[in-house]
């Protein structure tokens, strides 16, 4: 068994020469927090069903600022939507491959280049992200770069902003960290798409953290696509502060990866906010996908919704934890939660853990969780109409997760997810997913 303290020291040692852009007093606070936090182990409640040994068992090198062959970068661009594209390779911003409209009034680019701006100083490290777990604290203490996006007041961004994340190991065990900051000022609206890809045969670990500030009446759509390879693990922490009247939608599609842990924390700091957190996961082989969602209703009159659905194949295992915390003052809270899983084999596993902590009395909170197999009655019904088993199953499963994919408002991206999901449902290995070879988005 890995000695956790040794491993922790090793991870920290690996990054000790990094210079974090965090201001000094805050950085000290973060480092103190990191000192207190232990790496997750089998007794850590929030990680009970996710064993991080498969991440920790390797000796990594720090991901360098590599140059990825252009054809791979282009694979994951959606030319039709003319998106602003911000590319991170091993957590480093790539000037070469990023292109965006500099005249739109939106400030974007690398954390490194924007750390002198006022909004950076005001907001970087301002959420409780670093208190969430070891990996978030580790990232907050040592990440050097990432994406910075600032959407000014009243600005409505027409095109989606696409953040492309590559981990490029060059066949060495590689660790990569990026710390992103997205600020939506009052009444602004933007769609942000973040996609994760690995280009490595050897083990990689991507430790990502994103802070999102949703100011009054802002509206953010945040899409996450994870299609990393069988040797790539990711811990993806997102922390969102929502102020009065803001709307936040997150929609996550995880189609592969070795070990994937997505944590989304929502701090509802204002009234009349809406948070809608959705996700699909569709692992096979021995993949492990863990979605941890936590919504803190601190103020009255907010609405939150969690809807996660999974199809689990082979020996894959998934975890969904949905936390809803309603503070004593958060009257008229309306919180809904639903997690549904289909197990395709006897060896697949799904853990579903709804956790509701409610201290206000005038609230509406609902939750539901189902895990089962494909509806045999529906399957028989479809077969009696001439539809063969495989096609019937595909139709049923497409329908099962289809409502979540339908929520994606960026059409080329929605088509892309549908294309890959359908390929997977038909039992074809979506090569392009884990080992980039073709451009599914361009095929359309």
């Amino acid at each position, binding site marked *: 068994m890995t000695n956790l303290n040794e491993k922790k020291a090793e991870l920290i040692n690996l990054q000790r020469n990094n210079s974090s852009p965090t201001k000094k007093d805050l950085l000290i606070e973060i480092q103190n927090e990191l000192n207190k936090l232990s790496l997750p182990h089998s007794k850590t409640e929030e990680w009970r069903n996710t064993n991080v040994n498969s991440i920790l068992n390797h000796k990594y090198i720090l991901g360098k600022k590599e140059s990825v062959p252009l054809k791979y970068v282009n694979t994951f661009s959606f030319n039709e939507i003319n998106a602003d594209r911000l590319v991170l390779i091993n957590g480093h911003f790539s000037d070469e491959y990023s292109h965006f409209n500099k005249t739109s009034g939106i400030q974007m680019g690398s954390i490194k280049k924007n750390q002198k701006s006022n909004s950076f100083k005001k907001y970087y490290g301002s959420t409780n992200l670093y208190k969430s777990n070891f990996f978030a604290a580790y990232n907050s203490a040592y990440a050097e770069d990432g994406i910075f996006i600032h959407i000014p007041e009243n600005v409505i961004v027409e095109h989606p902003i696409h953040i492309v994340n590559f981990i490029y190991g060059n066949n060495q065990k590689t660790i990569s960290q990026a710390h992103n900051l997205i600020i939506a000022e009052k009444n602004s609206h933007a769609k942000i798409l973040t996609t994760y890809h690995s280009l490595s045969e050897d083990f990689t670990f991507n430790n990502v953290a994103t802070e999102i500030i949703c100011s009054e009446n802002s509206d953010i759509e945040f899409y996450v696509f994870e299609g990393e390879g069988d040797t790539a693990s990711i811990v993806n922490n997102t922390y969102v502060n929502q102020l009065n009247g803001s709307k936040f939608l997150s929609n996550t599609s995880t189609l592969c990866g070795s070990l994937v842990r997505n944590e989304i924390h929502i701090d509802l700091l204002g009234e009349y906010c809406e948070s809608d957190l959705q996700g699909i996961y569709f692992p096979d082989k021995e993949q492990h996908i863990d979605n941890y969602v936590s919504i803190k209703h601190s103020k009255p009159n907010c609405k939150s919704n969690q809807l996660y659905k999974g199809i689990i194949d082979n020996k894959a295992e998934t975890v969904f934890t949905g936390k809803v915390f309603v503070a004593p003052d958060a009257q008229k809270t309306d919180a809904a939660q639903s997690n549904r899983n289909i197990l395709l084999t006897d060896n697949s596993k799904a853990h579903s853990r709804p956790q509701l902590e409610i201290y206000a009395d005038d609230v509406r909170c609902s939750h539901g969780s189902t895990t089962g197999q494909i*509806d045999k*009655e*529906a399957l*028989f*019904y*479809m*077969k*009696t*109409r*001439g*539809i*063969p*088993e495989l*096609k019937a199953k595909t*139709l*049923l499963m*497409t*329908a*099962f997760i*289809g*409502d979540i994919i339908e929520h994606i408002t960026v059409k080329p991206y929605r088509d892309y997810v549908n294309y890959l999901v359908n390929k997977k449902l038909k039992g074809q290995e979506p090569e392009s997913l884990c080992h980039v070879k073709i451009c599914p988005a361009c095929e359309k």
Partner: protein
Amino acid sequence: MLKIIDLKAEINGKEILKGINLEVKPGEVHAIMGPNGSGKSTLASVLAGRDIFNVTGGKVIFKGKNLLEMEPEERSREGIFLAFQYPVEIPGVSITNFMRAALDEHRIHKGLKPMDAAEFLRYIKEKKALVELDAKLEGRAVNEGFSGGEKKKNEVFQMAMLEPDLAILDETDSGLDIDALKIVANGVNKLKTKENASIVITHYQRLLDYIVPDVVHVLYNGKIVKTGGKELASELENTGYDEIKNDADNQ
């Protein structure tokens, strides 16, 4: 068209069908009546290929082929259609997509090309009119949130779309009011030709006022105990099943 010879079937070791013999010829309408638990729905299920039933003996020949060797989807493509007593809800799959998938399979089986979109829309419209299916239903998910009447109409609509040689209507009248019953029966009658046949399974005579059978069979305790013309149905309406049960039990 269909020949059932000494068919026996069980579920969980319990024998339900104890030797059924039945022959259906093109153009015929057969009614199978009988008290609850006599095996009517089991017979329908076995013919459609539901695998929870275990066939322990006998043969079923459909258009010269061994039906029992075929998968449910093959039976459908060969021309068997089962209208379910309790049509299944399929959330998220629209009737249009569902029928598109089914019809494509049927056409490929017949060596025809799948219809193009325009052709398909024309076809679906024509069939909808035939069975008086509400226009707004087609965009909705199959049977999801449908009333009992809508579900049964949807079954007849699917039957119209797939044009089976042999339709098996399993208690299609159950849960229907008289107006819905008339529409459903009307649809079935319109679909009748000299070449196709149907088996109408029902507990009550009521449906047979609208779908007039050529032959009526009474199923009791896993066997056909009486066969007659359409007048047998009205007889049963007056006497009930008790007399038949007594006769059969005393044999």
